[in-house]
Structures are given as C-alpha cells and as structure tokens.
C-alpha cells in the first residue's frame, strides 16, 4: 500500500495544510516532516538565489523499518511543500514529483487569490482539497 502525504508549511514553519492518502496517518509523518523542514531551511538559506528549488530528495530519512522519501519544494514566498512517499513507491519519478509540486503551487496560488483567505490560515478551500485529493489518489493508484 502506497502512502503519500502532503504537507504545507507557512514561512514561519507552522503547518498550513496536511493531507495523507490513503490512510489518515499524518501523525507518523509529522516527525519525518519536521526534520525535513530543517533540511529545507538549510537548503533555502544556502542556496539563496534559487529559491524555487523544486525538489529535494531527502533520502536521509530512510529508516530501516520504514523508509520514506521526502521531497521538498519552496515557493518564492517561503511557503514550503513537503511530499512524503514510501520508498517502495519507486516508480514515482522525479519529474512526476515535480509536476505534483507544480500543480500544488498552482492550486495554492488560487487559494491565495481568494481575498477571504488570510495568509497563514490553515487552508480550508474545498477546491484545493479536491485538487490535492485527486492528485494524491492518482499518484497512489498509478503505482
């Protein structure tokens, strides 16, 4: 069973959105993700110029028991997207991850365009949820 989890963090590193497919076991991803945030920060600060670092393959979190691949993505406004997938999901190609991030970014932009959304609020947009669900399900189902 492939797991995939998506998290979004604000520039202040508090979560804006958390979603996990197929099972809602985000909690077990939290630790993973928080550590990955450190890596993201490190990269962001290091790279300075290319803020839109599309992904980082964080293979360092391959535990012996559970192995995950953590991909990160940072927008220009320091909003961080993190995708966690099973390492068993080897067929998930890099460009697919990139496309997922791109889609997420677009959806996130749509959410931001909503004047009723205050940046920093948890994202509750149904449209956004729908897009994320569709994307994640598709990803999980394909592989």
């Amino acid at each position, binding site marked *: 069973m492939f797991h995939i989890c998506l998290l979004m963090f604000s520039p202040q590193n508090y979560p804006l959105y958390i979603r996990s497919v197929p099972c809602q076991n985000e909690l077990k991803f939290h630790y993973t993700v928080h550590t990955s945030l450190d890596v993201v920060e490190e990269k962001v600060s290091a790279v300075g110029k290319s803020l839109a670092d599309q992904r980082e393959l964080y293979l360092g979190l391959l535990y012996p028991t559970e192995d995950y691949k953590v991909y990160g993505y940072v927008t220009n406004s320091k909003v961080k997207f993190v995708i966690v997938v099973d390492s068993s999901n080897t067929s998930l190609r890099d460009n697919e991850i990139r496309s997922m991030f791109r889609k997420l970014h*677009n959806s996130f*932009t*749509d959410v931001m*365009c*909503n*004047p*009723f*959304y205050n940046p920093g609020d948890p994202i*509750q*947009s*149904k*449209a956004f949820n*729908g897009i994320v669900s569709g994307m994640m399900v598709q990803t999980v189902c*394909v592989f």
Partner: protein
Amino acid sequence: MESLTLSDVEQKYYSELFVYCDTDNTKKVASNGRVLDLFRAAQLPSEVVLQITELCGATRLGHFGRSQFYIALKLIAIAQSGLPLRVESLNSVKDLPLPRFVVGKNEAEARHAALYQDADSQGLYPAPGTALIPRPPGRGLQNKKGPPSSTSLPAHEVIQPLAPSIEAQPEPTSPVISPHQSPPTSPHSWRKHKRQHSGGNADRQQVVAATGAVWTQFREPQTGPVTGDGMWSSHSPPPPLPPSQESWVSFTADTPPSSTLPAMHPSSVQESTTIRTVASAATTNEIQRQSSGYDDPWKITDEQRQYYINQFKTIQPDLTGLIPGSAAKEFFTKSKLPILELSHIWELSDFDKDGALTLDEFCAAFHLVVARKNGYDLPEKLPESLMPKLIDLDDSAEVPEPAAEVGFSASPVEVTPNKSPSMPSLNQAWPEMNQSNEDTAIVHPVPIRMTPSKIHMQEMELKRTGSDHNHPTSPLLAKPPELSEETKLPPSMKFVAANTVGDGYSSSDSFTSDPEPITRQRSQSGASPEALKVVAPPPPPPRPQQSHSRSSSLDMNRTFAATAAPGQPQPSAIAFPPAVPPRPLPTQSSVPLTGHRVEAEGVPAGGAVLTTTSPQQIPQQPNFADFSQFQAFAASEQPSSLPDIDKHSEAGQADKISEGAGPLRTVKSDGPADERTSATVNSAKGSSGPLAPPPKPVRRRLKSEDELRPEDEQIGPQKAAAIAAPLTSQPSISRSVGKDKKAIQASIRRNKETNTVLARLNSELQQQLKDLLEERISLEVQLEQLRPFSHL
C-alpha cells in the same frame, strides 16, 4: 387586577403592542402566537414568562385582556430590569424602562414614523420570499438611509440600512428611543427583521392603522407593521413564526436556513412592493416566485441581476471593470456569512482566478450569497446559470438545471482556473472543442510526412477514389483519417496505407521524431518538400515505412508498400543490402538494361512497360524514377537477396531496408550483367514466395508510376539519364566487343564511365543505407521509449 399606572409612553407602547397582539381585534388578546412571540422576544426565561402570565392574570382568565396584557408587559419590563417579579412592583417601580423585545431592534422612531407613514404603501415589505434578493441597501449602507435602491419607502429604507447596521450596532436608540418617538411610523420598523411574516398583510395593515406607536424593538416577524417588514431581525425568529417568513438577504440579517423561501412566495407575491427599491421589490417578488417555482434556484432573474448590477456600480462604476478582491471582500463580509463560506463562494465565482470580480462573477457571487443567506447550501461547483459566461438577461432565459447547484459538473470551473482572463467563454467552448478536436483531427489536412512517392500515392488514391481536394496535398487531407486508420483504405489504397503507415512512423521519426498520432502530425508541408527533395537526390534506399528522412526511398517505399499492401513482404525490395552481388558484366547487364532503360526512361518511373517481363520490372521499380535502372540490377539481385529480403521484410522494416537493399541491389546489379538481372528477375519471379512480391510491386509501381510520372520524370530522367547513358552504352559495348578492338576499347571506356557512375551511385546508396539504418535505430529507440508508456 391590580391597578396599573402607566406612563404615557408606556401607555402608548403597551397599547400598540396590544393592538399588535390583538389579532382578532376583540380587545382581548388570547394567548396567541403573537403574545407568546412577544413575550419570547422579551428574552426572558420561560419560567419568568410563565410567572408573568400568572401574575397578570392571564392564566386565570385564559387570555390576555388589555389590562392583563399591560400588566404582563410591565412585568416583562420589570423582569428585564432584573427586578423580582412582584405584583407590587407594578406600580412601585419607577422609571421602569419599557419592556424590551429583542426581536427586532427597532430603528429610531423617526424611521418608524416614516415607515409608518408609508406603511400604507404596503409595498415596503421587502418581499419576504425574496431570499434571493439581497438587501444591498442594508449591506451597503449601514446606517444610511436606504440605499439608492430603496427609494420607495423611505421608512423601509431607513429600516433597512439600519438593519444591517443594527447588527453592527445594536440599536442605540432601541428600546429607549423608540417609545419616545412619535409612534406614528411603523411601529414595526424592524431592523434586520427577518421577514418572517409573510402573510401579514392584513396584520400589517392592521398595525399600521392601529397605531403609530413604534414598536421599538419589537422583533418579530411582524412584517405587518407597515411597511416594514424590512426589519431584519438580528436574531432568528422564533420557531412558531410563520415558516414562510423569508428574510431578506440582508447581509446583516441571519436568514434562517430554510425553506422559507418557497413558503414566502405566496406572501411575497402578495407584497407587491418591496422595500428596497422598486426594482428590488419587484425582483424579490419575482425571485421568490421563481425560486420557488423553478428547479434551478441558481438562476438569476432579471431583477436580481439588475440589482446586482446596481450594487456592482456602487463599488465599481465601470461595469466592464473589475472589483478588486479587497473591495469584494468588504462588500461580502457585510453579509455576515462565515468567512469560510464566503471563501467558498469566492472560489466558485471567481472564475478566472484573478483575484477580482467581473460583473458576471460579481453577480454570481452575490447570488450565491443571497442563496446562502436564505438557507441554500452552497454548491460544490458553480452552477451553470452562474457561469460568468452568462451575461445579463440570458440568465433568466436559461433553463434551470435541476440539482445544478450541486451536481453541476462544471468541468470548466474546475478546469479553467488558470488565472487566465479568457475563462468566460471557455466553459462552453470546451465541450465543443473536445468534440471538434476529433473532427478536426480528421478533417484537418493531417500532415503526413510522405515521401514524394507517398504523396503521389495518396494523390493517386485520391484521384481514384474521386476525392476532391483543393489542398495541394489534398490527398493527404482525406487520407489522413483513413490512412491513420489504415484498415479503411480501399484495396487500392492499401498501397498507400502501407506506405503511410510506414511513413507515418518514419516520417514522424525522421522528421519530427514524434511518436504521436503520426498521421496527424505528419506535416504535409514537410512531405511535399520532402517529396521534392526526394526527387532530387539519388533514389533512396528502400525505407521501411517509418523513416522517410529522405523521400528518396519513394520508389522503393512505394514499391515495397505495394508489395506490402498485398500483405506480402517485400522481399525483393526489402532485403537488406545483401552482399553485393558480383556486378554483372556491363555487357550482360547493359543489354537487357538498355532495353529496360529505354523502357524505363520511356516510362518515367513507370514502367508501364515492365509489367510482366523482368526487364520491365526493373525499370518499373523505380517508378520513382531513379531506380528504374537499379531495379533492373536489383532484379538480378533479387533472387540472391530474396531470402534476406524476406527476412527483413517480415521484420517489418521492410521499406526501409528493402529500399535500402533495393537500390543497393540495383546498384550492385547494375554492374553485374543486366542480363543476369533480367534472368534473376525472372528467376526471382519464378521463386514463388519471395518473388511474388516483385511482380506485384512492379505492377503497383506501374500504377503509381503512372501517376507519379510527373515526379518521377523529374527523378527518373536525372538518374535514368545518368545511368542510362552508361548503360545504354553497354549494349553497344557488348556488341562492339565482339566486333573490333576499337569497339572494345570504346566499350571499355564506356564501361569505365559507367563504372564510375555506378560507383558514385553505389556510394550514394550506401550513404542512404546508412541513413536508413540510423533511422531504424532511432525508431527502435522510440519504440522502446513508448513501450513503458504502454504499461501505464
């Protein structure tokens, strides 16, 4: 009953209330709904109310007489002030404020007065049912007297604007002020009063007529009072209220989620005038009617739309302009809907995701807010009737879609958000586009990369089929769909099909290396120039269907295709360049060749001459002109190369290889005796399997050649001439050999010349072969690349 002294104000107030409650006009108010409502509106615990009832004696009497009622009211006032309920306190409490009935904070007396005066005009009721009609006035004007829209009833307007503001500001004057003011105006100016009292016309009138007392905070669905009904209660009306009450969608009011809409209709209909504006009133009525009557509550009526437009103007005078997000946010926030819902409404209505609202988007958003205020759940997707593409009055004309609001598969909505302003028309354009894609795919002149041969073939086919196309490559136009389908081609077309199939692959491969809908993507433009190009260069080696980097393989392709069409491998042509057969002696080859040549030349690319005899075959092959001579040679080689050819042809790379092989063979055989070629050709023919194809291709070639003649002629003559010359000389040489030394020497010279020519040809063919091989490799790579996708 205890004596009750009431101040004047109290007296007036109470009498008004009494009248209000005295629906039967019997001076005795039974414990009817109004009274209960009133008491409930007092916001007192039920026990207190009960106690009051007992104290005032209503319980005893079973009804509220005037005195009991007054006592009750006073007790309410006492209770509200926090004093214990004592009968004694009735008269002892001084300066007791008037009982407050929270239902509706009444507007200031002035408003009441105004309302009251206008009460007669009854039309002030904001159509209760018009849930659909937002109360913009209220919204926009919080504390202002009626928005521009509500002109009809100043009082109402007053009320209305107050209504919105009421929530924002609890009526300052409320309980206290109202009683002091002159009663006349509608006692029932309820701000934010939900119109719950739909049917209260009669009541209203009664009330209106009854007193000018202002019911200060007589919350209530007392729509009756006067005009007003415009009162928006800030609180949800008590349950017993007539369900039909509909509240204006005033952003200040909380509409009871319901179903009041339908109920309101009848009443609303009765209420001719609406408070806000004539327009809004009318719209509300109509809206009510419509909303109740139609399946699609999302349809925007004309009145509604007009109202929305007016509101739009208040924010953005330019109707074609955009309302920025912040302004829209403020505007819709006044509706007091939860931010989450507003956010959802925004998502639905901001079609182009640009953070701003166009007029259509604004109307849609407004409509959704109105609906939501009236209890309709927000749809998941934007209903079609609210799509921005709809403009103005088209909405009302639209057929409502049942369950459109929820089930609307607004794919465009979902799909569009691209932040491109061009959204509006896309919704509907898409389905058409999708459909049209199919058609266009077929209709469009699918550029098919074709070697000149193919083009010609197609043209021939088309001509045969009688298709009429204006496009220069018109054959391709009609053909692409067919060709792509391949199977549909008529038998005569098979040749072309085969070619195209191969060409498709090859073309795509060689030209664009685009593995996709090959037939579609072949560019005719590419094809024709290719064809032309092909004409120029030396006959390309037989290409497999796919690759046509150089259409030089025209002839061979066609040839092979022709052979393939019948389903046979193209052994003759397809064979991979087998070992170069020993060149036939010029004499040997020349003789037959010359004859062939002549024929070949005579029949550009065609060789109609060469139908049956091998010599004929030879020249015919190069229908494509160039190969005619080579064909002759190739024919000689065919037998030897047949086995190889068979293999290769069956490998499916026939064209490519065969073409490569063919010309090579032809070249090779060129040197070797033509006679041999002819002989071999014959023998090739003789061999059943492998040889079978040659005749066929030959025949095909003949056909195609006939049609391709014009082109072939271009090609043919060039090569043919080049080759013919030396070849023609060969016969002479052969003859001369046997004659005298000079002749021999001359023949030798000629042979040498021929050799050089042939060598040149050979090199060219070799080069073509290499190219073909490369193409083949690239195709294979593509195939491999495509394979994984096939699994997905």
